[in-house]
């Protein structure tokens, strides 16, 4: 095992999948010589050529549509959207097309493609370089949605995504790209299955659900409240948001009876709403307190100005406070 950053793990996954399968190609803005604005595809054009690492025109819907067409023709596109905030022009292609193709053709036309997009705030990106988009897409049957929280999962899940015969949206915490480090097997082709949630930390007092960088922050907060207050949280990293592992979600709740859901996206209709809905129905008999959500406020975006941004974003401190509140219920 070697220590890798999140983005290194992601780059490695793409590199290995391209080496493994000639059908895999990458397209997106600046993915070629520039190596992507976050450098996730750095060096791949030198290794695999401009035919397989294709700088697209500045046109997101076409990036996705080219991917859909190529996937139906048997290739394995990895489409990079430079920032998740710019995925909206492609929503028609993703929601009405990629997600519905297999179903609408009664299985005739699968769409095996991956859509990678850096998401999330806290990097001074303002309204349009900070968005979380998972909630909207989590309402779209036919998509799979993955949001890894650590390098091991990121690499293993991305490889699974490339091999999955369905459209997989792969959201990457850009704030965590270089911040989050972790062990990744030195070599050897491992995958992490798309589907099951992952318990990052066991505990009996309450369950905190999160994904992406919020799972990372939650784990930090959980360690802190364990140290300082003796509160033992179970931290469930949802990882695959769609299709949701309902049993996995419920299992922990049956033990603790208390749930906090953390996400940085706007509160209302954010992904935590679905977790709360599942728990308050299937988990009703285990409920031992209100289902709490800690999320971004309902304003149209993450503000740029530093103090406002900080006030917007959940962080380990706010999470710890929410844990203490709920534990004390």
């Amino acid at each position: 095992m070697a220590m890798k950053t999140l983005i290194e793990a992601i780059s490695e996954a793409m590199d290995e999948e391209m080496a493994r399968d000639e059908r895999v190609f990458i397209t997106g803005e600046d993915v070629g010589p520039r190596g992507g604005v976050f450098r996730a595809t750095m060096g791949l054009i030198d290794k695999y050529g401009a035919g397989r690492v294709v700088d697209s025109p500045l046109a997101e819907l076409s990036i996705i549509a080219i991917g859909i067409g190529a996937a139906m023709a048997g290739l394995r596109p990895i489409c990079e959207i430079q920032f998740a905030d710019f995925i909206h022009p492609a929503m028609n292609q993703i929601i009405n097309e990629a997600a519905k193709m297999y179903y609408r053709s009664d299985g005739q036309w699968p769409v095996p493609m991956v859509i990678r997009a850096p998401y999330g705030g806290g990097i001074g990106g303002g309204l349009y370089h900070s968005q979380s988009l998972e909630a909207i897409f989590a309402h779209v049957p036919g998509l799979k949605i993955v949001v890894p929280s650590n390098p091991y999962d990121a690499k293993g899940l991305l490889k699974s995504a490339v091999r999955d015969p369905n459209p997989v949206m792969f959201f990457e915490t850009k704030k965590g790209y270089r911040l989050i480090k972790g062990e990744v097997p030195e070599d050897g082709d491992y995958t992490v299955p798309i589907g099951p949630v992952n318990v990052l930390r066991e505990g009996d007092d309450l369950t905190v659900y999160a994904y992406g960088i919020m799972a990372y922050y939650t784990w930090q907060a959980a360690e802190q409240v364990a140290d300082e207050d003796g509160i033992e949280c179970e931290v469930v990293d949802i990882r695959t948001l769609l299709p949701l592992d309902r049993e996995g979600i419920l299992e922990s709740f049956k033990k603790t009876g208390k749930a906090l859901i953390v996400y940085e996206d706007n509160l209302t209709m954010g992904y935590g709403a679905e977790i709360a809905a599942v728990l308050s129905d299937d988990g009703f008999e285990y409920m031992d307190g209100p289902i709490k959500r800690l999320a971004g406020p309902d304003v149209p975006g993450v503000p740029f100005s530093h103090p406002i941004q900080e006030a917007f974003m959940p962080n380990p401190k706010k999470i710890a406070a929410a844990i203490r509140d709920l534990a004390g219920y």
Partner: protein
Amino acid sequence: MTEFVTVDTRVDGALSGERPSDNLTEEQLLDMYWSMLISRRVDERAWILHRQGRIAFHISGIGHEACQVAAAYAINRGVDYIHPYYRDLALVLALGVTPAQFMVSLFGKEGEYSSGGRQMPSHFSAKWLNLLSMSSPVATQVPQAAGLAFAIKYKIEQGMQDPDDESLPRLALTSLGEGSTSQGEWHEGLNWAGVHSLPFVCLVQNNIYAISVPMEQQMAVKNVADRAPAYGMHGVIVDGNDVLACYDVMVDAAQRAYNLDGATLIEAKTYRPVPHSSDDDDRSYREREEVEAWKKKDPILKYQNALLERGILTDELLEEYNARAKETVDEAMRIAEETPWPDPAPHLHPNSVYAPNGLDWKG
């Protein structure tokens, strides 16, 4: 970078040099006639079924048969990719979808060929013919077809496909109406086709209306093909009611694609003599005189007369064809009626939503 292409105005019939259609055998010429005719008859029956209240919806290809059948015959049928639109009944029948399959789809009966009855009629799909699956939002197929064409070029360039292997798709053809070219999807799709010089053909069936909206409220050009230069594409205008003229320009476009010599935008000027769909009433937006005038230019009539004149079609043959068409349609109806309704359960099951893990899709 592809050079600009000046627009070729074959609509005036000013064809020079050898015409690919000159090489069509009598049998082929009659096959094309049959394809147009059977599509028309199936289509007419659908209108009747709707009027009888036996089906809920029909959207028609009447009037568009010439350019569609020409397209089917000019390419490698059943092998090249076709990403069609809802008016392409003649195209998909010429490709190999059967009248019975289409009739079943009008009802949404069990085992419906395109979607298992999940989609509305005329939302074609037939993997076995490399006919792609349609949605309703217009123009979405255009950039996807560029993606299919991209894959063809990719496979050739990466040494995964012999460029001359005729058992594999060598072009992607997509079609749509002139109104749908206002969509950003069209712009972005054609832009890719031009930038990457893809084996791509875009067939715009210009019937001068988008439901009720006429051309001049849709775009500030006289011809859709006038936009081809903006994408470094070859642009052609053709009389969409003249099947052989359409065939000529389609063959030309297909050859260009097969040679990886650039993408083509074909504008077939035609007309929809019927309402937009069974939900439409076209009297609110166009004069009856206009409709009647166009009916005189009916593509089937036109072709029929040409073939009669050339002695390829005879009155007996015509009668035989009409009888065969009626039989075929009756038989298709019988099959559709006898087909049971589907059991909903599998269509609402999670397994219907996702392709199974481990499926190694090869296209």
